[in-house]
């Protein structure tokens, strides 16, 4: 039988040894430089704060290749057969199929990506994993709507109300096809047939098609625009400055709102696989997911982070924050959509 003194000595030894053991377990990246392709501005700053700083604490170095995902995709095309220009790439649903078809991404070792364990099959495939959900709907000025006696818009075509004439902004096709698909579904269309939406939009005679969200946020703040199809992230950021915005997720077929995913993948041919895996896994951690979600008004994939955000009444008012609500939003079939055809039609019918 072990005596009390020996027991105490063993416990002390365990306390002394534990930190060293933990440190030994912590993966180190001394001398490793990882190149991450991501968006610029405050998004990059947040990536550095939440993931990059932790990587650097472990001895590594981070270099950011900033630009939108399409530009970075073009860089991969130009570099085909050569060393890739970056190791990890962030993108959205619209580039998911082109990236898969081009074969630029390496298989993700999900056995080692412990933070992806809770992902559903819809949130990951062999080479990509979802990092957040973007929630598209209608952002509107609640005070103006109240003054006009208008109720919360229930469908995209509610924006064509005469009382709102000249005060509605509609996204240009370069923003994404979400709103035009949503409008098309009101007359039997969908992402494979946007013609009904284009016809309806043409008839509505919208005067202002916005190309930049910064431009739109300025117009919302100045009171020039009262309603626009937009995503909840911007509603969150603008409402924080006391602009009286509200959010509606209009009917899209039998669902409400449209969702798109942020995704991440490791580029084939990279020379820093372990570091890239660390990056992806850290991105999916509850801590990073929640902080990123709160700051940008995007819904985390991680269930615990989503749950934590649900407790914030400000966010809960503007976002879909339950798995049920998110699951009930319309998800575009990115495998079948022909974006170039939609853009072509847009240019012929709306932008001419």
């Amino acid at each position, binding site marked *: 039988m072990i005596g009390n003194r020996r027991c105490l000595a063993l416990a002390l030894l365990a306390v002394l040894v534990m930190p060293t053991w933990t440190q030994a377990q912590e993966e180190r990246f001394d001398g490793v430089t990882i190149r991450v392709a991501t968006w610029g*501005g*405050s*998004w990059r700053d947040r990536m550095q704060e939440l993931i990059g700083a932790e990587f650097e604490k472990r001895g590594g170095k981070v*270099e950011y*290749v900033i630009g939108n995902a399409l530009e970075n995709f073009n860089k991969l095309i*130009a570099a085909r057969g050569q060393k890739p220009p970056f190791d990890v790439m962030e993108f959205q649903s619209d580039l998911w199929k082109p990236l898969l078809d081009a074969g630029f991404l390496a298989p993700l070792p999900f056995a080692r990506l412990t933070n992806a364990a809770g992902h559903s099959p819809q949130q990951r495939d062999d080479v990509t994993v979802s990092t957040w959900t973007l929630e598209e709907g209608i952002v509107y000025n609640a005070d103006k709507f109240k003054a006009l006696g208008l109720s919360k818009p229930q469908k995209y075509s509610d924006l064509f109300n005469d009382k709102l004439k000249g005060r509605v902004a509609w996204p240009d096709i370069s923003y994404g096809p979400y709103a035009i698909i949503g409008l098309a579904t009101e007359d039997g269309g969908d992402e494979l047939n946007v013609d009904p939406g284009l016809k309806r939009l043409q008839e509505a005679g919208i005067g202002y098609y916005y190309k930049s969200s910064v431009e739109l946020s300025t117009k919302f703040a100045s009171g020039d625009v009262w309603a626009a199809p937009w995503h909840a992230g911007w509603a969150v950021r*603008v409402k924080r400055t006391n602009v009286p915005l509200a959010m509606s997720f209009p009917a899209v077929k039998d669902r409400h709102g449209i969702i798109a995913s942020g995704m991440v993948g490791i580029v084939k041919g990279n020379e820093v696989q372990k570091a890239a895996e660390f990056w992806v896994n850290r991105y999916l951690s509850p801590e990073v997911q929640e902080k990123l979600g709160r700051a940008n008004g995007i819904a985390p994939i991680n269930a615990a982070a989503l749950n934590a955000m649900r407790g914030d009444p400000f966010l809960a008012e503007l976002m879909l924050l339950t798995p049920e609500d998110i699951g009930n939003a319309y998800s575009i079939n990115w495998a079948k959509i022909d974006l170039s055809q939609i853009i072509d039609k847009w240019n012929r019918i709306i932008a001419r």
Partner: protein
Amino acid sequence: MRYRRPRPSLAQGAATTLMFGVLVFLLSPLLVVAAASLGPGDRPYVSFPPAGFSLHWYFEVPARYWQAIGFSLAVAAGTALASVVIAIPAALGLVRSSFRGKTFVALLLRAPLQIPYVVTGIAFLQAYYLLGSATGLHLRASYPGLVLGHLFLATPYAIGSIAAVLARLNPRLEEAAASLGASPWRVLRRVTLPVILPGIYGGALYAFIISFGEVPVALFLGGAGRTTFPVEMFTSMQFDFSPALLAVSTAVLLISFAVLILIQRSIGFDAVVRAGSAR
């Protein structure tokens, strides 16, 4: 008899008013940016007129903007210097020589002006990859790579600026120097170059401005740690907006004005503008 200044006619008054109107119209976007940068509070949009006065955002400009400005200045200076080094002999050849195919060569030297910048960016990127795999020399996302790309865009302007001054240079000046025993090199150094100096300054200034403000080529040829200021601003605006952007833009604006004043004081801006406009 006391001289009486003639009263300005109605037409002169209208022209002056129009001139000031145009000036205000041209400068108003810059004034809005500068004024909006003084607004307090964090907001993801431009607020004008500002709700108050604060220099807060001037102290909150992220370091990446200053780094990008430093890198852009270095690239633009390299481009300006290299473009005049190329442009001087090219302009001398075009203006002074007579050879078969001169028109074709002149057209070729202007060809970069006809090519969209995005196409130039992709073409250079592909070329750098090919060069890298063939020789091991990797120019993508490097300082020399970006300067080369910008050189392609800026050199036609520098050639035009120098050639315009050179064409107006009286050849008798050089003939006189030569007849007094000066060697061709001495004539070039002591007569030709000093006379065409405004053209050289003008060419360098145009090259600098083109390089400093260029986005599409830098977007493709830049990379990790090699981001120019306009690309940094462009990509920031694509995702988000911070009043710090207005602050850093105003700071760059003030620096640009300071440089223009410096040029005016040292060499005379009129000479530079004349050289450029004579293209």
